[in-house]
């Protein structure tokens, strides 16, 4: 049965490795109707495409089972529907695993609906003329190294999945706010013509999509912005009315804070022009937004505006971008910085002697310059950790940096300690292109299982 006036939606996770207990708390104590998990970072889906190539039954978010096992008992008992992009490159397998898990937990036959059609790898390969949004160049140059391309789908296809009445909706790449907007469109029967409501639902999704970042996480500043009990931080939920007005809150008794300040910070998070935030569902304008602190830990959000959705989907193109190699070692006490600087020079000389060269070479003095760069007049710290990082197409050249950095223990300036084993990681980078919606709309599919 559809709710007609009122809906409560919980934000279960803000990234794939987010804490799990706050979502269980929402399910058990939050009196929520929907629990939404956003677990798919920009490049994760391309990485999972690689996993799927090696093992066709994998390619979903690795923590799927752990997260589902924690929340399924309460969600099944309380008829809470789950919406998530944990399907990544393989929503079907994610649904199979979830259904298997539910049976193992004695929860019976739990129905899932999966959304597919976001994989546009072959389409991008067939259109080398597509323009890369970041630099204006044709995508052709990336094609030889392309691993996968996925389009950010919108809420409409999730609504179709919800219409199957399956309890759990599992998608691959969809826009993060769309995961939250879809239950509102479904339950309140909003259409894309209801621009103010679509805009409100999109803002609501944007506020919830990063989990506790709206309820006190990534916010506290001792003595300045006080937040209690961050170790027991509660994840947020939204109470949404059919007219699109909503408030953000959290489970009573949980740690954290929902205030005008926490909501403002999350509202502007990853937003560029606040009058034109493009999602697959609308072009959002938050410049007239009104925020009201209704009660402790409850903020009402009013007056979102929007323009109709654009005729394009944004696509992330994931590609192999060589290797990053890294080494670290520490110096302390008198002359620490001078010794660290000399160590960096010695490693560079050694790498040159061995015939290696690098397209990028970064030197950080941790404790001094690794996060904010190196402006002048910086106070010299007592301890300095030297960090040397390179980019190169060669794995051997990447490994050499960490090797030479560690060798400073015996071969460099006095008193070098705590060198790490050489780090090497393959780089999976992403760029973006736009494609017309009609190229893929007919290929987007929903399938119910169970």
């Amino acid at each position, binding site marked *: 049965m559809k709710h007609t006036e009122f809906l409560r939606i919980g934000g279960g996770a803000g990234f794939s490795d987010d804490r799990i207990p706050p979502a269980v708390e929402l399910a058990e104590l939050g009196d929520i109707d929907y629990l939404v998990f956003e677990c798919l970072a920009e490049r994760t889906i391309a990485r999972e495409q690689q996993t799927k190539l090696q093992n066709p039954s994998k390619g979903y978010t690795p923590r799927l089972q752990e997260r589902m096992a924690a929340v399924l008992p309460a969600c099944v008992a309380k008829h809470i529907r789950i919406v998530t992009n944990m399907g990544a490159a393989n929503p079907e397998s994610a649904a199979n695993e979830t259904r298997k898990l539910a049976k193992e937990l004695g929860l019976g036959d739990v129905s899932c609906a999966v959304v597919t059609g976001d994989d546009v790898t072959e389409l991008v390969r067939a259109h080398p003329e597509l323009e890369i949004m970041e630099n204006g160049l044709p995508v052709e140059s990336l094609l030889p190294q392309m691993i996968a391309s996925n389009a950010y789908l919108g809420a409409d296809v999730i609504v179709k999945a919800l219409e199957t009445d399956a309890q759990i909706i599992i998608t691959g790449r969809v826009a993060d706010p769309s995961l939250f907007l879809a239950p509102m469109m479904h339950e309140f029967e909003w259409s894309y013509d209801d621009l103010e409501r679509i805009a409100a639902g999109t803002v609501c999704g944007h506020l919830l999509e990063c989990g506790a970042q709206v309820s006190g996480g990534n916010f506290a500043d001792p003595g300045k912005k006080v937040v209690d009990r961050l170790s027991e931080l509660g994840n947020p939920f939204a109470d949404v009315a059919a007219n699109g007005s909503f408030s953000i809150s959290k489970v009573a008794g949980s740690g954290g804070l929902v205030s005008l300040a926490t909501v403002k910070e999350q509202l*502007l998070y990853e937003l560029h022009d606040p009058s034109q935030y493009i999602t697959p569902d609308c072009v959002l304008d938050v410049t007239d937004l009104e925020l009201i602190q209704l009660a402790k830990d409850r903020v009402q959000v009013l007056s979102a505006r929007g323009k109709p959705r654009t005729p394009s989907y944004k696509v992330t193109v994931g590609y192999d971008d060589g290797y990053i190699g890294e080494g670290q070692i520490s110096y302390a006490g008198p002359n620490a910085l001078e010794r660290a600087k000399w160590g960096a020079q010695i490693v560079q000389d050694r790498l040159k002697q061995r015939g290696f060269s690098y397209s990028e070479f970064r030197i950080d003095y941790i404790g001094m310059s690794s996060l904010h760069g190196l402006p002048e007049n910086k106070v010299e710290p007592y301890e300095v950790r030297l960090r040397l990082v390179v980019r190169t197409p060669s794995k051997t050249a990447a490994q050499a940096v960490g090797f030479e950095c560690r060798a400073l223990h015996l071969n460099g300036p006095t008193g070098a300690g705590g060198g790490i084993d050489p780090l090497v990681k393959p780089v999976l980078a992403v760029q973006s292109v736009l494609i017309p919606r009609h190229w893929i709309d007919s290929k987007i599919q929903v399938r119910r299982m169970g």
Partner: protein
Amino acid sequence: MIRLHDIAHSRAGDKGNTSNISVIAYDQEGWEIIQQHLSVEVVSEAFAHITNGPVFRYELPKLQALNFVIEGALGGGVTRSLAQDPHGKALSSLMLSIQLDI
């Protein structure tokens, strides 16, 4: 001189090689100060050793907030940056360390 940290708070977000950094005033007085004095020029100078990319500034008077969009600040992009903090999460505190000459 007023340090931004005393009158405003901030969060940094990432998209590709671009960092967006909000600056939100604690009160009306703080809002008037940042609205008048926290210009594109001031922010560009504070980030000049990180990027020469253009800086865009957006005002949200109802929220008493500014949003700065700083291109080229993330070492080539989150997914390929060599930086220790590829998302630039810590850049919000670089913003708050700005001293306004008023």
